[in-house]
């Protein structure tokens, strides 16, 4: 037990440090806006993903836009997706889950890499 104690303490500190997470620590996509999730949160380690995918331009994902039309020029870095994409979308706008699905899957299709089917991201 004595040996385990320091490891336990480090584990607890690490676990709590996750609470104060920024983008660098992001491992899953689970915005609070969804409330109770219907599927396991999609795995997404922000920095590791972008390094592997060679994504340097933030606006590639963090796009702007209005009235359901995307503006690939204006960056919205730092603004939560859910601020624009409502969980229950109005007509002519893109809902939050659809926004994530479109964003991730269309890029994976174009690059020929990365998950496409439901359970590849929503791993049980």
């Amino acid at each position, binding site marked *: 037990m004595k040996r385990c104690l320091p490891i336990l303490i480090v584990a607890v500190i690490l676990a709590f440090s996750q609470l104060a997470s920024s983008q660098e620590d992001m491992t899953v996509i689970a915005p609070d806006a969804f409330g109770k999730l*219907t*599927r396991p949160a999609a795995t997404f380690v922000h920095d590791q993903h972008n390094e592997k995918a060679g994504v340097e331009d933030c606006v590639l994902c963090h796009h702007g836009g209005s009235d359901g039309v995307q503006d690939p020029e204006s960056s919205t870095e730092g603004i939560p997706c859910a601020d624009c994409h409502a969980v229950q979308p109005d007509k002519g706008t893109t809902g939050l*889950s*659809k926004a994530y*699905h*479109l964003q991730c*899957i269309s890029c*994976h*299709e174009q690059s*020929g*890499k*990365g998950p*496409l*089917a*439901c*359970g*590849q991201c929503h*791993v*049980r």
Partner: protein
Amino acid sequence: MNTIYEFVTGPLAWLTWTAFFAGCAWRLASMYKLAKSKDTSSIAFMSWKYSLRSIAHWVTPFATLGWRKNPALTVATFLFHVLIFAVPIFLTAHVMLWDQFFGISFPAIPDPIGDYLTIVVIALCVFFAVRRLQDPNVRYITKKADWIALAIVFAPFMTGFLAFRQILDYDTMIILHILAGEIMLVAIPWTRLSHMVFAVFTRSYMGSEFGGVRHARDW
């Protein structure tokens, strides 16, 4: 993986739908031609009134003597046929794909209920299989084609259940699931599953004969 997934959900899916609709159209047209040359009188006595009366009578659970005679089979049959359409169309994961591929959105069956209903379909397939083996009357008229038809419907639900639960290798299972669904669609016109397109006509034929020729009820 991505290449296979994109192939089975892309070109192969379109080929499947084309084969399904063309196959159904071909089977209906050739059956009509056959009826016209071999059974002209049947076409002459076909009646809208008695056809619709018979269809309405037989799609109502327990309305006919046949349905009343075997209540368990009646419940199983109606439940099975409703579910094999409702579950694939309204399942949450499939509703997501309707939106992703075709941009149409409609209400979905929540995941836990969809999972439960899939188990019901699988259980009903087992029920039909056991019945074919146990009931001497059914066993006597059961042919290989009946087993093939049952297996073709069973496969997409079983693989869908395993893919949803992520039992065994997911990447393999999801491909098998899509392929199983495509096999089912292509097989519909050419196997015993063709009753999907022929049932209304066989029912109409019987209804018209009982109503218009024999002047009797169709029991």
